[in-house]
């Protein structure tokens, strides 16, 4: 799934343009009455970067994106799109941005063709340029089959793709996509991810999602927010390394051993031995290390010494999901997290 060259290019691009972020959010705060939805969020996205914007429902993802797109005004803080301040230079900022709002709203009584033509005209595309872009986008997002059907009669997947087409129609240097793959089937998800990867080298892209595998598949960086605050910001691989199960060893023994925990307890780096989800107690084990320590050699040596026969043995990388759960539910983890 992971298209290595594309991701590598994306990272190179980010380094080159690191001095001039395309989407810059500084100390953003949004209050609705007494409720603080976004509480001091800052991040910057350079050309070539795909930033995965994660967080549980209600964490402030959509509110942040609505402010970045110029729909809501922030209570405090600053947002710049391609160098244009979203509050003071709104039209220029909006021109440089492609935005897919949550739920991909569109005018239901229009056809995708008339809808996209409308967006193109409002964005000031000339007739010939519009026709060219329309053909290109329709081809890229595979809308040809439904181009002349009213949008309200389309399936959820097609509606989402129409919204996505609208966001990229004017080929903007910055893209903010709020859950672009929500409601798509696995094939369509794959297509949209490929599209994002193809666009990545010369755009700055923010993608919000709650599908964590998507982050590992397309994003060069991930920001996790919880209750309006950034709780993690880093490459997906680095975030995964923070999983409590990173470098854990999964074992399946040939015969049942009751006291494996006691036998491995004093191996350097081992904190505990558990039965993995769905495993057979006494045969399947998960040996958890202290904070990502590499323990496989120690564990293997001890098993050899004690003569325990192994059927399979593998190192776990941990899952982004574990990190996500850790960061967004426990207060202890949050104070430890880098802001």
């Amino acid at each position, binding site marked *: 799934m992971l298209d290595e060259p594309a991701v590598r290019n994306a990272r190179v691009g980010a380094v080159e343009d690191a001095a001039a972020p395309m989407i810059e959010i500084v100390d953003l705060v949004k209050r609705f009455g007494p409720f603080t939805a976004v509480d001091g969020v800052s991040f910057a996205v350079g050309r070539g970067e795909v930033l995965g914007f994660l967080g549980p429902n209600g964490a402030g993802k959509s509110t942040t994106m*609505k402010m970045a797109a110029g*729909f809501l005004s922030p209570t405090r803080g600053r947002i710049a799109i391609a160098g244009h301040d979203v509050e003071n230079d*709104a*039209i220029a900022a909006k021109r440089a*941005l492609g935005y897919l709002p949550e*739920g991909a*709203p569109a005018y239901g009584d229009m056809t995708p063709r008339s809808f996209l033509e409308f967006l193109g005209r409002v964005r000031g595309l000339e007739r010939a340029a519009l026709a060219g872009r329309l053909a290109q986008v329709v081809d890229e997002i595979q809308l040809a089959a439904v181009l002349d059907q009213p949008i309200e009669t389309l399936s959820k997947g097609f509606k989402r793709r129409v919204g996505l087409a609208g966001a990229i129609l004017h080929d903007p240097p910055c893209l903010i996509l709020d859950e672009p793959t929500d409601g798509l089937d696995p094939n369509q998800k794959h297509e949209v991810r490929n599209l994002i990867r193809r666009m990545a080298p010369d755009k700055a892209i923010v993608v919000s999602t709650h599908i964590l595998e998507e982050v590992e598949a397309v994003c060069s960086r991930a920001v996790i927010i919880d209750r309006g605050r950034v709780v993690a910001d880093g490459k997906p691989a680095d975030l995964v390394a923070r999983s409590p199960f990173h470098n854990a060893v999964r074992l399946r023994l040939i015969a049942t051993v009751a006291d494996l925990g006691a036998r491995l307890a004093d191996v350097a780096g081992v904190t505990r031995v558990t039965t993995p989800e769905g495993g057979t107690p006494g045969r399947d084990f998960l040996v958890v290390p202290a904070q990502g320590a590499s323990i496989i050699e120690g564990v293997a040596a001890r098993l050899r010494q004690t003569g325990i026969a192994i059927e399979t043995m593998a190192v776990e990388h941990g899952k982004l999901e574990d990190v996500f759960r850790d960061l967004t539910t426990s207060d202890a983890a949050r104070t430890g997290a880098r802001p």
Partner: protein
Amino acid sequence: MKSVCTIARRELAGYFATPLAYVFIIVYLFLTGIFTFYVGNFFERGEADLVPFFDFHPWLYLFLIPAIAMRLWAEERKSGTIELLLTLPVPLWAAIAGKFIAAWAFTAIALALTFPMWITVNYLGEPDNGVILAGYIGSLLMAGAYLAIGSCLSAATRNQVVAFVLTVVVCFLFTVSGAPMVLDAFSGWAPQAIVDTVASFSFLTHFNGIVAGVIEAKDIVFFASLILAALAANAIVIDMKKAS
């Protein structure tokens, strides 16, 4: 300015994409006919003018215009397209103006389709066509004022029925504010200046002035400034209500 046109064109096409436009126009023409010929005694009066036709416009608009205006912003908010529209590179006023102009153009189309009325009266007698033209201008201006109020109130809610009822109530107050039933409530205690101010907000007074064939600046200014004020309020309401 170009974006105002683009938005207005999309909106206007939207009216005709659904049965709404046709239902509205048919009901409108049907009701103007009934009011003019049966309630207004068009023939019995024996005069070649369109006074019975125009006389009922304020009351007709009171219910028909809110039906057009109710969906202007309430629907955008309900379907979420407001987020799309307001993140396009157009200023808020352009979006408001575009939608308003489309709705106004639509009522103008409906009004223009009453031309058989004009043909009839010209066939039967020799009316003062200048007065009739003034009547049409007055009617269109008044429709614009109802629409602007409706557009503003439509932005306050995502429920079209609520928008409709609110608009009917507010428009009703504007329509009758010159009538004795309203003025009597003030004249007992308020100074004459206040009574006059309330009376001067009456759509009926201004409309009847124009329909009588006297296009006075004060009547035009009244409707124009009311439209602008309502649309300015519309912008404020949209800004306030965006988050909810």
